[in-house]
């Protein structure tokens, strides 16, 4: 992973159409502005990871488990 040090007001350009700017640094919180094409997904990493994990758990569901659920009634 590329690691860069930036100050408030500075930024990073990724490719042709993504700009990331550091707006504010306060304690351990950084306010970041992101300019990206609307088609580009911009997600908080923890949300992305949470949903990814949930999708991977869904793969582990067996057809038997679904059958058993419907046996309940």
């Amino acid at each position, binding site marked *: 992973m590329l690691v860069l040090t930036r100050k408030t007001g500075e930024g990073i350009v990724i490719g042709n159409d993504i700009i990331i700017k550091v707006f504010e640094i306060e304690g351990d919180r950084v306010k970041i502005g992101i300019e990206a094409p*609307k088609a580009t*997904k911009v997600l908080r990493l923890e*949300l*992305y990871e*949470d*949903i990814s994990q949930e*999708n991977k758990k*869904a793969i582990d569901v067996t057809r038997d488990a679904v059958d058993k659920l*419907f046996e309940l*009634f």
Partner: protein
Amino acid sequence: MTIASDKIITFTNGILGLEQYKKYVLLDHPGTDIVKWLEAVDEPEVALPVTNPYHFFPNYTPNISRENLLQLHIKSPEEALVLCVLTIRARTKDITINLKAPIIINPDLRLADQFIVDNPEYNIREPLQLKKACSDRRCESC
């Protein structure tokens, strides 16, 4: 198994965490029309149980931007087929539905993507009352 190409659903970005698989087929689960399986064409081991969220949550209104829908060439929300991923915790029989990240399909072009909606009321692991939903449905048909 050979799959007719007109059955294949192509994900523009991929299901989150499973971006390496882009092509899926939607298969029925024998004995029920509530659960279907999204199975990766190149890896049949990768199959996610999905359901029509409106079956359980008739007022489900995920906020998906016009731009996101247009990526799938969906011009109005009514054209979209909406599915949500189900997870069953082993042993406990707890079943949850992911209302936070629905899978949106353009049924005509067979294009799809998983979007994260900004509705704060929708959870990644919303408990599903399967039993209740089914008995209610029976009542309706009585």
